[in-house]
């Protein structure tokens, strides 16, 4: 045998090895370990439920309903200051004082959290219709829930940022950088469409099984819709939607105002939409909503942000029991009677949002169990009142306004305490309704949006001493600078933030 033939054999051998391609392809096929992929997801009914639950889970997210959420609502408004130690999370003071620029982290974190939520909703809305076999009623309901949630997320975004990219399906790679800002009016159209479609398929609150308590109901969709119309100044539709909620027979004011915000008031008769939170030993079901606003230091070990202002204190009518139920002062006994709030020498004007207070619970403080009440029946009644007044039906408006006042008064027989409002002058009544909204809904993150909606943010802020507030600028928050940068200029900035 010669070298040549040996070489030939060697080469042949290698060629043989190299040419066995079938084996290597199979060998190199590695599946994700312990994870479903989009290839085998959305195949069965369970997947539809899971994908919908994942949209709800964002409601407890830090970037959706915690630090920056409270910062860009209550702390920005005249209801609350930053709170906590002077220097703790000093960036929130930029929201309080309107010294933020486009690079500020709060709008960026809100933007991030809300768009992630919207992405989850979009994925569910796109894919649930294609699941081969599932209960049709359930299919429609889940799609409705996701549309409701998408509308909710967009509603907050459009109120904070104005024109925003309107994305209603998962984007393809070539669309990542091409989005532009959709005019707010169009975003509102989509919100209205989603809420209307949701309301058409969602069950009434009472029609849900006990195990589904907390899911979006028809009443929730119509209630938010009423608020959307009110925000747009479409009082006719606001009136209709609010009255539909009122006349649905699903809701009633909870007799004890203070207790709404405690354990017993969770998902009470007054609850139109609220986010369920639970402190489990193993975690995973809580939020940080209560922790960030909790009493700083012992005995409650919260962070002490969202500190009520003097302006808020004086916004309550004399003797209004809601003031005590809203503001937790130093020296006051905690709602569960467990301790007295001690003075923290390192905090100025120390006081707390009592509505966000929760008693001691299992797990750590970030495991907060307090439900986040997003839409209460009292809010719907006041929306109805405001719309009716604008529509020239002041007598009807007074009915709903006085329902709220009567409940606040509770069992008191004092005729001077929160007497029924009788004024029917449109402008005066409007002012009374606005005042009522502030007192009733204080520190529930509605005030800021109300002020902007009512077109008086600049006046109120300046009167409150927030002299940095610039009319025409600060009604909106800046589009996050990183988003503008990444879009290569396709995303424009809000006025005066450039």
């Amino acid at each position, binding site marked *: 045998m010669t070298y040549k033939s040996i070489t030939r054999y060697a080469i042949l051998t290698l060629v043989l090895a190299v040419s066995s391609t079938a084996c290597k392809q199979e060998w190199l096929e590695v599946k994700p370990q312990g994870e479903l992929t989009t290839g085998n997801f959305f195949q069965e009914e369970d997947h539809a439920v899971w994908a919908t639950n*994942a949209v709800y889970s964002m409601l407890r997210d830090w970037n959706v309903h915690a630090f920056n959420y409270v910062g860009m609502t209550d702390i920005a408004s005249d209801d609350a200051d930053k709170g906590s130690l002077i220097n703790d999370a000093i960036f929130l003071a930029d929201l309080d004082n309107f010294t933020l620029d486009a690079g500020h982290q709060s709008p960026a974190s809100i933007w991030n959290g809300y768009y992630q939520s919207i992405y989850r909703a979009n994925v569910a809305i796109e894919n649930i219709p294609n699941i081969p076999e599932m209960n049709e009623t359930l299919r429609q309901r889940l799609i409705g829930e996701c549309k409701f949630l998408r509308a909710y997320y967009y509603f907050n975004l459009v109120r904070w940022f104005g024109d925003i990219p309107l994305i209603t399906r998962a984007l393809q790679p070539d669309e990542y950088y091409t989005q532009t800002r959709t005019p707010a009016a169009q975003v509102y159209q989509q919100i209205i469409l989603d809420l209307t479609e949701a309301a058409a398929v969602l069950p009434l609150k009472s029609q849900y099984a006990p*195990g*589904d308590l907390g899911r979006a109901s028809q009443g929730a969709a119509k209630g938010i819709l009423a608020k959307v119309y009110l925000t747009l100044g479409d009082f006719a539709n606001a009136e209709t939607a609010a009255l539909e909620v009122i006349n649905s027979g699903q809701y009633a004011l909870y007799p004890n105002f203070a207790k709404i915000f405690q354990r017993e008031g969770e998902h009470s008769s007054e609850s139109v939409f609220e986010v369920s939170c639970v402190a489990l030993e193993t975690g995973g079901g809580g939020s940080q909503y209560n922790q960030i606003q909790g009493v700083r230091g012992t005995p409650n070990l919260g962070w002490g942000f969202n500190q009520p202002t003097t302006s808020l204190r004086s916004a309550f009518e004399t003797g209004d029991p809601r003031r005590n139920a809203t503001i937790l002062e130093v020296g006051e006994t905690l709602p569960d009677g467990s301790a007295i709030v001690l003075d923290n020498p390192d905090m100025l004007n120390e006081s707390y949002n009592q509505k966000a207070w929760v008693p001691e619970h299992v797990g750590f403080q970030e495991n907060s169990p307090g439900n986040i009440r997003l839409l209460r029946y009292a809010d719907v009644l006041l929306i109805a009142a405001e719309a009716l007044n604008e529509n020239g039906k002041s007598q009807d408006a007074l009915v709903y306004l006085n329902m709220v006042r009567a409940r606040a008064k509770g069992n008191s027989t004092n005729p001077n305490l929160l007497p029924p409002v009788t004024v029917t002058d449109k402008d005066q009544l409007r002012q009374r309704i606005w005042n009522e909204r502030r007192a009733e809904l204080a520190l529930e993150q509605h005030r800021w949006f109300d002020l902007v909606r009512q077109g008086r943010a600049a006046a109120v802020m300046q009167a409150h001493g927030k002299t940095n507030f610039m009319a025409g600028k600060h009604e909106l928050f800046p589009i996050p600078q990183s988003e503008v*940068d990444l879009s290569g200029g396709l995303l424009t900035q809000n006025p005066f933030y450039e």
Partner: protein
Amino acid sequence: MIKGITLRTVAALWLILAAWTLQAQVTIKGKVTDDAHEPLIGVNILVKNSTAGSVSELDGTFELTVPNPYVTLVFSYIGYSTQEVALKGQTTIDVTLSEGSQLLNEVVVVGYGTQRKSDVTGSVASVKSEDIQKIATSSVTQALQGKVAGVQVTASSGRPGDGAVVRVRGVGTFNGTAPIYVVDGVILDNMDFLNPSDIESIEVLKDASAAAIYGTRGANGVIMVTTKKGRQSDKTHFSFNSYVGQQRVAQKIDLVNARDYAQLSNEAAMNTGTPKPFADPDALGEGTDWQDVIFRDAMIQNYNLSANGGNDKILFNLSADVFRQEGIVRSSYFNRYSFRANNEYRLTKDVKVGHNLMYQFTDNNNEPGGILFTAYTADPTVVARDSAGNFGNTSNRSNVSNPAAQLEYNEYNRGYAQQLIGNVFGEVYILRNFTFRSTFNFSMGNSRGKSFTPEFFVNDKQFNPESILSVSLNRSRDWQWENTLTYTKAWDLHRVTVLGGVTSQARDFENWGGSRRRLVGDAEEFYYLNAGDIETQTNFNGASQEKYYSYLFRLNYAFKDRYLLTASFRRDGSSKFGSERRFGNFMSVAAAWRVIEESFMRNQDFFSNLKLRLSWGVLGNDKIPYTAAIPTVTSNLNAVFGTTEDLLFGATPTRLANSFLQWEESKTTDIGIDIGVLNNRLTLEVDRYIRKTFEILLPVPIPDYVGSEGDPYVNAANLENRGWELTINWRDRLGKVAYHIGGIGSYNKNEVLSLGTGNEAIIAGGVSGGGFSTRSEVGIPIGSFYGYEVEGIYQNQADLDNFPKRGDEKPGDLRFADTNGDGVISTDDRVFIGNALPDYIYGFNAGLEFAGLDLSVDFNGVYGNELYNAKKMDRFFGVTNFETSFLDRWNGENTSNTEPRVTNGGYPNYAVSERFIEDGSFLRLRSVMLGYTLPESLTGKIKMERLRIYFSATNPLTWSTYSGYSPEVTSESAIDNGIDRGIYPVAKVFTFGIQAGF
């Protein structure tokens, strides 16, 4: 499947063997040995002026068929002088080959084989064992610092057991910039498990030609480690090496004392319109130095015993090693116990098998999480403990924990690991010119982690309401099966080596863990989940898997020993890519010309070596997560529903994937010259390279409105590194003094060539306050710092009126440059303000030996880079402690034009700007060593071969203006580089050691 392929290969080879028949004419037999009478294997034996030849066997014997017994045989062997022997009628002949010129015939390890240094066409640098052992560390990568031109080793952590970040020829990619490590043929991501004293040599394959045989994995360079092998010897050689030493923090950070802290806090309060917290700062004095609370002088020790020897059947090298190191931060330590067995068994004259096995177990404790940051930030006016033993409350004015209390309550963070790394191989010599080698490489490991925190309460910011235990277990398994066939032949003026092979690799990783709270006791015997309340249990378990399949081929050809050619090809498949784009082809060619061998160089004696090298090649990189191409569904996105508040399962895709991902490619061109003059007293190697990386895999930031959790990987960018490398050494004697002096230096320039389709800049380097400090843009170096240029400080209202501003600045605030000249300061005025990539990396060393004494010094350094002092910027947690640079603050007109008034965050003083940029250049005296080797006359009496004692100092001196613990700050990610968010400081180490051979 894979087994089938390789079995076929083996079967075919055996067939070839069986078919072999000898065409006998005259058979010459004999044995080749070296000067020490050890047999030489694989010596090329050639009938002069013919193509007939043979190769010596494992025991040095050979058989050769020649036409008549009067021919001349030529014996040649790597590293030895070629010898011609005329047979003169003999049929049995023994030949002794002498080692050739030490330098030129040095053997270097290249992928899947060895080569004479003189035959190397690529850029390969070698580091010897002695050089690695000079540094007192557990980490071989740290010991490599300053040893190889073009290799930047940054030891950015002094934590016991930690390694270093290694970069070969700049930063060639965005994320995983680390080279691969090939230890005795085993491809690994790390080599810090090795004992420095087990290492024979380290070779760094820098250019594409040298690294191309590692194809997909070699794009960031290849570091090859060869551990010590057994040598045939009459007696077994034992050696015992040991050192003990003390470590101390090399450099503390200059922080203000209690009095100055109070003063600065008062000014900060005044500047924000809040009440002064301290009535009388002067009364406070020095206060607590929190760094002193957490640092300590710490012990380091190492003991190594090895045995080396062998006969014509078995060669062995066995070693056992104990390494124990306390950390300079209290409570941290790292202990390692390892064993190695590198054995070779010659089963027959054609077959040998062997193994290189390393088993080790380690245990360590990490310092309390974040304690370096709390020591940096804690309020110095507070005592660690008061006279009653209670911990001081450091969280009054910030959220900072008391470091002393952390040491008390958060100190239990144990890790335990064991690893088995190595290979088993068999080699068969076939038909004299062929070697078939099958190697099974593996790296198996498992590690456990356990941390316990008792219930405690220091204050309302530092407490733990319930004791908690967390445990975790990781298992990793990596095996590679490599089958290669090598053909070696020399005839006339030609020498050829051809290598072909098939390899497969699978890696998988799995982890488990859980936690429980409310343990039945706080003592260590209760640190098991069963001791906790089952109501509180959590658990996790996940895994990952990757696989590779590759074909490799290499040709080495030498003509007249002076014209050298290397060509290699590797085809790699990786499971990380979709089936369409799974395979990549990587090739290289290189040529070298040994000018010194030419006839026109014969009549000069100035040059003793002169070689020109030229190479080009393509390498790959696949450092992405194993599911980057597959969109997965995230589980446990749960929601709470129902009257009983149940947590209901949720899942949905949250992360975008990119199924179009493919290999990243890097193309390197290298031209080099090797010069030796004055009989190689002076040697010089110079390389010029251009390395371009294409289709770089990186998670490209996409707008948040897309809604993805994290950015998907994209083959997005192109990068270029151009540079020079220089290695120079002078080695001579002056009378009885032998001395050497040498240096390495390299220059590298990095430039981003393109970024994705739209060339969107990549923003990264997140810093406190939500800002980003780096920006990668076309035309500038990757990961450059980007922010405002500081022009000065607004001294007064007039300055505010006259200079451009944003609008809300006050006197005493930083005044930024209006770079676009539009009259106002806005984000559009941000510019590039620095870069963390050094222009020059260098090292130099000198040594001398005289009458048994030896002295050596090693320096290394970098020049031309900046660091971003992000820790100074981080004042998120309240009024934390201040660096002394704050004392230069503005507190009235013309008091400072660089350091602004004291504020605690916000624009402009805490925007990303030049204020936080510092010079990163440094020069470090890496080691000084003074040793004494006892004369043989003395050691011989006590039956010892060698006895050396030494003192050494590691990191005794550093010249740097940087204000942190160490100017060595880096990260594996090129877009998050040089940002100091707080590091574990490096130590100076002083050791006493002994090396004994018997």
